[in-house]
């Protein structure tokens, strides 16, 4: 039995040294500051750019991109508890939190009680993991890795256009070493995205539970430092589905922004120049562009030069 367990743990360790999955590296360090949200933020916001551009403000580091995706990190108690466990224990009140918001962050299955939603969230990665900061993170791999461990013996074939950085940013490059993602592929993936959204949205509602949890999270984070809200750009077809799902979303977030005195940067109005590879997720250069705009806006806000504004190019 001892030999079996040792062999198993050795394989888990070997796996941890390569590519595990798109989320593993978000769980391998305590964080001073966080990016929070869904997969649009996971790919669309670059932590080291934010750290570099805002260095003069002396925010707590490291900044980790702790945004997962629509099945893992919608607002709720499970994500909230995960964020708490992720953060470094500090009393400086100089932590920075960038909350990426979209109607999807507040969605839940129709006819679900708060308990049902919480139960479903507990089945996600965030519900199964108890260790959010170790490296290697045995707890993460043992509790969430679903594929065979023989993947530890060969370099896992992560899609070569995608890189998972140590700070949790999932970068997708349109062009890599002369290999460009074909337009036909991007068209197909966009079709899949829209199909998925149209199918899913029929069974979902805007959840009071998720809204309440969002407010709780906001208050918790405000006590620890600076909080800002951002809505990332996407293709117009995707935004149309989101806005039809919750027409009053922007008004709701603007209301939150005023009530809780946190800036809200809405980058969906004019997404010119931003490229997604599937209608929803920003490719690498666009992610860097958006992050640059965000840090500029945030700098302005922090220096109190301008009021929070909607972006126009």
């Amino acid at each position, binding site marked *: 039995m001892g030999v079996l367990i040792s062999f198993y743990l050795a394989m888990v360790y070997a796996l941890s040294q390569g590519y595990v999955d798109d989320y593993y590296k978000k769980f391998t360090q305590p964080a001073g500051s966080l990016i929070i949200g869904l997969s649009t933020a996971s790919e669309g916001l670059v932590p080291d750019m934010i750290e570099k551009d805002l260095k003069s403000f002396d925010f707590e580091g490291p900044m980790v991109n702790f945004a997962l995706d629509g099945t893992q990190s919608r607002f709720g108690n499970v994500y909230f508890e995960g964020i708490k466990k992720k953060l470094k224990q500090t009393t400086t009140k100089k932590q920075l939190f960038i909350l990426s918001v979209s109607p999807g962050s507040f969605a839940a299955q*129709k*006819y679900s*009680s708060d308990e*049902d939603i919480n139960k479903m969230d507990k089945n996600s990665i965030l519900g199964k993991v108890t260790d959010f900061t170790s490296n290697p993170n045995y707890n993460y791999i043992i509790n969430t890795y*679903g*594929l065979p*461990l*023989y993947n530890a013996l060969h370099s896992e074939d992560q899609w070569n256009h995608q890189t998972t950085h140590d700070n949790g940013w999932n970068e997708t490059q349109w062009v890599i070493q002369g290999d460009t993602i074909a337009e036909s592929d991007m068209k197909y993936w966009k079709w899949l995205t829209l199909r998925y959204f149209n199918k899913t949205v029929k069974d979902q509602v805007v959840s009071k539970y998720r809204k309440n949890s969002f407010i709780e999270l906001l208050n918790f984070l405000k006590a620890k430092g600076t909080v800002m809200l951002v809505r990332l750009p996407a293709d117009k077809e995707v935004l149309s589905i989101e806005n039809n799902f919750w027409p009053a979303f922007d008004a709701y977030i603007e209301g939150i922004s005023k009530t809780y005195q946190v800036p809200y940067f809405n980058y969906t109005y004019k997404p010119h120049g931003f490229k997604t590879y599937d209608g929803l997720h920003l490719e690498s250069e666009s992610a860097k562009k958006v992050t640059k705009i965000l840090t500029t806006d945030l700098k302005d806000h922090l220096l109190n030069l301008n009021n929070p504004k909607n972006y126009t190019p």
Partner: protein
Amino acid sequence: MLFNSFEFLIFLPIVLIGFYLTTHKYRWLWLLAASYVFYMFHTPELILLLLISTVVDYVCALQIVKVSKTHKKNYAILSVLINLGMLGFFKYFSFFTTSVQEIFMFFGLNISPNETRGSYNFNQVLLPVGISFYTFQTISYTIDVYRGKIQPEKHFGYFALYVSFFPQLVAGPIERAARLLPQLKQKVLVNIEAIKQGLIMIAWGLFLKVVVADRLGLYVDAAFGDPELNHGLPLYIAAFFFAFQIYYDFSAYTAIAIGAAKTMGVDLMQNFNRPYFSTTVGQFWTRWHISLMEWLKDYVFIPMGGSKGSPVNITRNILVLFFIVGLWHGANWTFVVWGLLNALLLIVEYVTNPFRKKLFLALKLPQKVIDLLGWSALVVCLSIPLVFFRSPSIADALGYFKNMGTIDTLHINILGSYFELGLCFMLIIMVQTIHYVKGNDAIYELVTKPSRTVRWSIYLAYMVVVVLGAIHSQNSFIYFQF
């Protein structure tokens, strides 16, 4: 507690050691406590239903032998009603209310729950794990006492243990009291050979579950999850894979159950007898989930008349039997359709039997060829109704069949790994070969008979295969949901 969990890995040795360290007089208490801990591990409150079933049937059985003939039946009926009542409420009530809602919707009346109005939604009723198994087990006990086949058990502890014995509590086999109770009461001495055999059975079950069944499940889930996207050939493969996934998943559970019981000197009944080597539908249903089919035969099919009487009566009996088989598996019309399609296959087989016999005779086909034809037809015929079994709704199942017909590509690698796809086919061939040679319950002979060097090589290879090849994403056994 799941058999394929870390907790069970700790739980079983502790129970085993405690069992052999405890004197025979109190072993029932140790096992009963362990069984309750096993059952309560995730949802403690569900123990109440198990206790209700236990107490009701214990009392009813004792009363049956005490009271007059006219009142005996009342106690038997009371036991059946209470057990079926619990089963009906917890398993079928939301199905019933949803079906009623759908009927009203068909006529344009919306009576579905409204989130803002806060009306109670019966879909929130929790389905207690194992309820379909232990209620059937206790009903069989009471009826057997009523029929005079057995005497009621006076020792409450042993009876409670019969109801809750953890290896077979949540997914069978559905044991008869005449078979299991005497074994639970007999004095068991340490038998290294039995313990070894039991552990090998457990190891085999674990391999079947995490390396084979769960691996097939990845492909099945991907295909059934989006048949429109994965139309054509992948859907045929997925239907074929599912037939084996469900078999391996369930027989894995049974192997672990039988193995765990064997380590404590208890022989649970066989629940599978090489079902996929059957050559007729009728033969298949005597080899698949044997304990359930025997139960239904003894307590439903034969009392209705069985296969005696007019063809109309026999047809009716078969349809009722498989309606119940379908419904027992789940509170959804898909399971009912699955059951009724199997009934239809049986009826067609029965009706065409004389014709087929004449045809084979006329063609002078050797028996082996007839068996091969029968086996091939069976695999195809069983896979089709299983699409309903696997689909979340009838509409989804029909959509699946429709998308099967759209063969416009040869792309079958829907998981992105030809290695894994090939491995799935290889594992099916390997397991079926082992089952053909040994059957599920004599697997240990493959390991215990060779020389020491070969044995230890097998243990080492097993360790490497399970650690490296296990799929961890599936987790619970399919039959836990029943």
